[in-house]
């Protein structure tokens, strides 16, 4: 549910029969609610409105802004969803961050172990001489990347939205 897969095939075009169906549905609802039901809804609506005072409208406004901010910030796709592990320039595996696991990636120098824990990823061990990628530590945000150039292994965190247009290294 949390992983948005972008399928290569786009949405199918809307058929004419769908437009006719939607129009019929709206028309039938309008016919049903033209009589007594509309007066009842109006009564309930005004009865509700008289209990909302001025400060209540302010609270409602603040609450709506708060909810909109939360939705925008948390659902914008900037949250890191998966770790893309590359070996030798090609994508070795795309791993979701939801499960704690350890992945061993073979390379020319040996095996690099990438560990995913608590929705963070890091290169736990690597047979490179200067251990730059291990010293990178935990990657947490989308777009962060750790490279082991001697062993040609890299791990990058990605969200549902691409953070950089292209990276060259």
């Amino acid at each position: 549910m949390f992983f948005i897969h972008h399928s290569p095939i786009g949405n199918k075009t809307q058929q004419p029969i769908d437009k006719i169906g939607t129009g019929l549905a709206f028309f039938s609802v309008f016919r049903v609610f033209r009589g007594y039901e509309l007066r009842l809804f109006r009564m309930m609506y005004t009865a509700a409105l008289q209990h909302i005072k001025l400060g209540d409208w302010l609270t409602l406004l603040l609450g709506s802004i708060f909810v909109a901010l939360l939705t925008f910030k948390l659902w914008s796709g900037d949250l890191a969803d998966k770790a893309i592990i590359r070996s030798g320039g090609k994508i070795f595996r795309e791993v979701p961050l939801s499960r704690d696991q350890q992945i061993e990636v073979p390379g020319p120098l040996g095996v690099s172990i990438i560990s995913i824990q608590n929705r963070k990823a890091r290169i736990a061990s690597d047979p490179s001489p200067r251990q730059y990628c291990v010293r990178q530590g935990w990657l947490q945000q989308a777009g962060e990347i750790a490279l082991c150039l001697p062993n040609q292994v890299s791990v990058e965190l990605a969200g549902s939205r691409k953070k950089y247009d292209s990276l060259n290294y």
Partner: protein
Amino acid sequence: MTTSTINLNTTAEDHHIARMAAVALGLTILESAIPSPLPGVKPGLANIVTLIVLARYGWRTAAWVSLLRVVAGSLLFGNFLTPGFFLSLSGAVLSLIVLAFARHLPARWFGPVSHSIYAAFAHITGQMLVVYLWLIPHAGIAYLIPIFATAALVFGTVNGLIAARFMDNFKKPLDHGIHGRKAI
């Protein structure tokens, strides 16, 4: 062999609080019949009682009613000391803390709708804290926060409106309502 009896001396205020907690409990049971799309997204109908009690009898009585309802409801449903119970409890405690501050807002402009919305947001905050610090220490729950926040806003407003509608009949401030024969 003489039988020993334990006498619990209950005051009329105890009876009153117990009666209101029972009403809140009944609403909780009613609410369990309503299916919810996501565990944790519930209308929170029992909070209507808390709001009315807060407006009419003060914060201490509302705290008693709310916490009694959480404990008794968990015993009734067999949820006592389960994670669900701690979620309920944390939500209730944090919303009571927020209501302790919110009741000082000027009553001319802020009615039960405001109290309900603040308490609802405090409720989901308390639950999210318990979930993140204890149950699921995983940043993935960030995806659930907007859903809970929307539900808190919507159901908070609805509950506040219902509470305000119930309080329409009791516009005058009550002084000896505890000892009188009132329904609530």
